[in-house]
């Protein structure tokens, strides 16, 4: 029995592209040789995350017991290594007291969700489901 595996020009596996794209924004597209797309995705997602942190937005943590916080944590995980870096350096742990900081929380959350969208796009490109 043989399994038909769709390949792409770069030879990167879809799962590797997905994981790379999740861990580092734009890395999935970079593996596939899509330099311009990778650069734009990386700059957009990292800038959005950084602006969110600079606005003193909240980086969600697990085990707070609040359902909305748990959802926020699940979303934030989409940022991959950026989330790990933020937790490691203690970013986004101050209480949100002003409207602009609440915007920051949304910037961080949306950056993480966009990173998932970008990683899935890299997977689709690698598997041949999306035209390169």
């Amino acid at each position, binding site marked *: 029995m043989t399994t038909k595996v769709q390949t792409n020009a770069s030879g990167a596996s879809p799962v590797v592209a997905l994981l790379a794209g999740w861990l580092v924004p734009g890395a999935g597209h970079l593996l596939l040789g899509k330099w311009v*797309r990778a650069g*734009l995705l990386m700059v*957009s997602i990292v800038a959005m995350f950084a*602006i969110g942190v600079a606005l003193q937005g909240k980086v969600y943590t697990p085990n707070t017991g609040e359902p909305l916080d748990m959802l926020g944590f699940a979303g934030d995980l989409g940022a991959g290594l950026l989330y790990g870096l933020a937790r490691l350096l203690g970013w986004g742990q101050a209480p949100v007291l002003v*409207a*602009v900081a609440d915007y920051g929380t949304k*910037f961080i959350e*949306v950056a993480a969700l966009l990173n998932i969208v*970008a990683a899935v796009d890299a997977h689709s490109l690698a598997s041949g489901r*999306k035209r390169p």
Partner: protein
Amino acid sequence: MTISHFSAVLLFSLFISIVFGITQRSEPKKMVRFGALCFALFVGGTIAASWAMWLIKH
């Protein structure tokens, strides 16, 4: 860091539109067009909603 509410809208819309354009379309020309459409809808929608709230208040 502090930014105005409108600057926040512009930045938010810009970054989302770039990612949407790249991920939701296959050809570069269509990516740019879709990204521009998303940006216009985000910013236009926010301005329209702001005026609607102003009108409701007054």
